[in-house]
């Protein structure tokens, strides 16, 4: 492994300006994260279909490849080769930008997640705030999709999504204040290092509020109101097809990955686990997939809330609980 000092020396010796070095490193890293994302999405979609099948007394994909493992590649080829339908009255720029923005927001959120002791793209001092704030930009993508596609169903879906995101952003942010108080840092790697005891045991209320709010944040059942099939056809992505639709799908699963990874970092002890140090990323992945499994379990079991009930739950139940959690944590720390 090269250290940064060696890299700098190499650049100086060969007359490469430092900004070129910076950009190339950034590009390489984001490419790596992108590849991980792609792989992760494939695994997640396959997992989702198999989990769903398991819950519903069926086999799931079985025909393409061994146990349907190549099904997703077939699906991707199908989606790419489909016609890109552009509604007649849609706003061209907003309509085209929306899926990209959503994908970007979800993808960039992964940059600060440490999956091993030093395995992180950028270990920001304000990593926690970054990890909460950046994925929330995704709601702009949803609203753009709703407005841009000139469709009443899509617009209703995007308005719902906006209301939901705003309401759940608050309890979600408040629920992790307890974690920051105990760990004494907003740096994600510092939070993981501080967890000699998993914070899920120290912050049970915070954990529940965070998990529920995360579900709402990434539009999963029982909070999948922006895309309810029974009333809004497909919600904000009703008018999207082919590749653009795939981007929404991508974004959804990456957001799920990011949410579960953040849950692991904050509450489930991050990469900590028995065994030698090089197993750390493996432990992280196992925990993250366990959280994802819980999300899928919820999705394939529960019906969904109505919009006013979602709002009620957010403001009347989760927000007071999150505040209570802060209060309790503060009192215990004072004592």
């Amino acid at each position, binding site marked *: 492994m090269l250290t940064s000092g060696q890299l700098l020396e190499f650049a100086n010796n060969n007359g490469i300006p430092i900004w070129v070095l910076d950009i190339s490193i950034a590009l390489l890293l984001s490419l790596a994260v992108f590849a991980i994302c792609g792989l992760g999405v494939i695994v997640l979609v396959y997992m989702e279909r198999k989990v769903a099948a398991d819950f519903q*007394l069926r086999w799931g994909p079985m025909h393409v490849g061994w146990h349907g493992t190549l099904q997703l590649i077939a699906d991707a080829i199908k989606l790419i080769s489909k016609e890109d339908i552009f509604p007649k009255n849609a706003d061209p720029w907003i309509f085209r930008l929306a899926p990209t923005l959503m994908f970007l927001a979800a993808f960039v959120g992964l940059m600060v997640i440490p999956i091993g002791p030093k395995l992180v793209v950028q270990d920001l001092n304000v990593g926690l705030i970054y990890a909460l704030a950046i994925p929330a930009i995704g709601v702009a993508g949803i609203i753009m999709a709703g407005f841009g596609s000139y469709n009443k169903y899509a617009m*209703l879906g995007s308005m719902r999504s906006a209301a939901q995101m705003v309401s759940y952003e608050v309890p979600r942010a408040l629920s992790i204040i307890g974690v920051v108080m105990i760990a004494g840092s907003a740096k994600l790697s510092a939070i993981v290092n501080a967890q000699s005891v998993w914070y899920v045991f120290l912050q049970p209320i915070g954990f529940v509020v965070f998990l529920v709010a995360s579900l709402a944040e990434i539009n999963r059942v029982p909070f999948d109101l922006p895309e309810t099939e*029974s*009333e809004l*056809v497909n919600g904000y992505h009703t008018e999207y097809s082919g590749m653009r639709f795939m981007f929404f799908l991508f974004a959804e699963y990456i957001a799920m990955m990011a949410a579960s990874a953040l849950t692991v970092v904050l509450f489930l002890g991050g990469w900590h686990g028995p065994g030698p140090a090089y197993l750390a990323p493996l432990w992280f992945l196992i925990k993250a997939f366990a959280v994802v499994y819980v999300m899928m379990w919820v999705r394939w079991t529960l019906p969904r809330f109505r919009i*006013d009930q979602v709002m009620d739950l957010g403001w009347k139940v989760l927000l007071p609980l999150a505040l209570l959690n802060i209060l309790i944590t503060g009192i215990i720390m004072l004592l």
Partner: protein
Amino acid sequence: MGQEMSKIEEAKNLTQNQILEELEEQLRVEEIEEQPDAIKTEEMVINFGPQHPSAHGVFRALFHVNGEIVTKIEPMIGYLHRCFEKIAENRTYAQFVPFTDRMDYVSSMHNNWAYVMTVEKLAGIQVPERAEYIRVIVGELQRIASHLLFLSTAGLEAGAVSPLQYYFDERERILNLFEKVCGARLTYNYIKIGGVRADLPDGWLEEALSFVNRLKKTIVDYDKLLLGNYIFKKRMKGAGKISAEIALAQGLTGPPLRSTGVAYDVRKSDPYSVYPRFDFEVAVRFQGDNYDRVVIRSEEIKQSLRIIEQAIEQIPDGRILPMSLPKDIKPPVGEAFGHIESSRGDLGYFIVSDGSLKPYRLKIQGPSFANLQGFPAMAEGSYFADVVLTLGTLDPVFGEVDR
């Protein structure tokens, strides 16, 4: 008769009063909205259907939506109109039976049965006892199959995807039983004028009984999974309410009427076939909301299971068709009305005969059509998401609405 008339008058007056009150309320709301500091909202008209995932076939409606609240519903039907009543005038009596299959395609047996029963009434044909028992057994199995489909879609519309598969698993077993009996899985054409088309295969009754015993246990689990779910209850309770008066005035029958507290069931109130011999209860709920309309179906399944058990116990041996059945059915001049309790309500056929081989006129009274009339009264003023659920709990089959 006189009392009934006065009751209906009362119900009409009540509805009118209620409509007036509603109008006043709407006016009041508008007054509030015109205040300068209130947020101005604009009404949006959404076209729902006929190609909407939860349009239950080809239902179309215009929803006037204010935010998330649906203020007005303009239903439009007729997308599946196939002129069945006119076709009947150009077919012989026996030839029309397969057409009835295509009316309420979710419970074809009941359609066969109601039509055939009316023709038998008209022509004075006596049905052998064994055939009557077979009709009851397949009819109740059909009711269970239809209600299972209803429960699965009710869950699906509320967002619970998995219960669908469990209900379909059970429904599949019923369809397999039907396939053994008549070879078809959806449009059976099994009940024939005079009896049934074929006798039950060997061992079929034992299979049916084992299915009944299985469903008795599993339906309890499914009730817990879907009907007992906290979110499902929260969604369904109190939404899409309708009072017994309005339900009667609008002509609702079947589970939507029984959920308001009116114990009207043709099997009890105007018994046909061999139903008086069985011990069962009419399931009644009293709230008249979406949840009651769902739960009542689950209770009806349990009652149907009871009936099937008793019928299997009592079924006699013998013929399935009368000794002397004329090849061409030529009823005397006259008219007849026969109705049965189908899965959706009071399904009636009215036939006028001019003494020829073909009916002079055939009129069908479809319960889905009547039930759909109550839809705007139930759903106006509720959330958009609940409107879809309300439509679902009415369980309309558009083959029957439009005919």
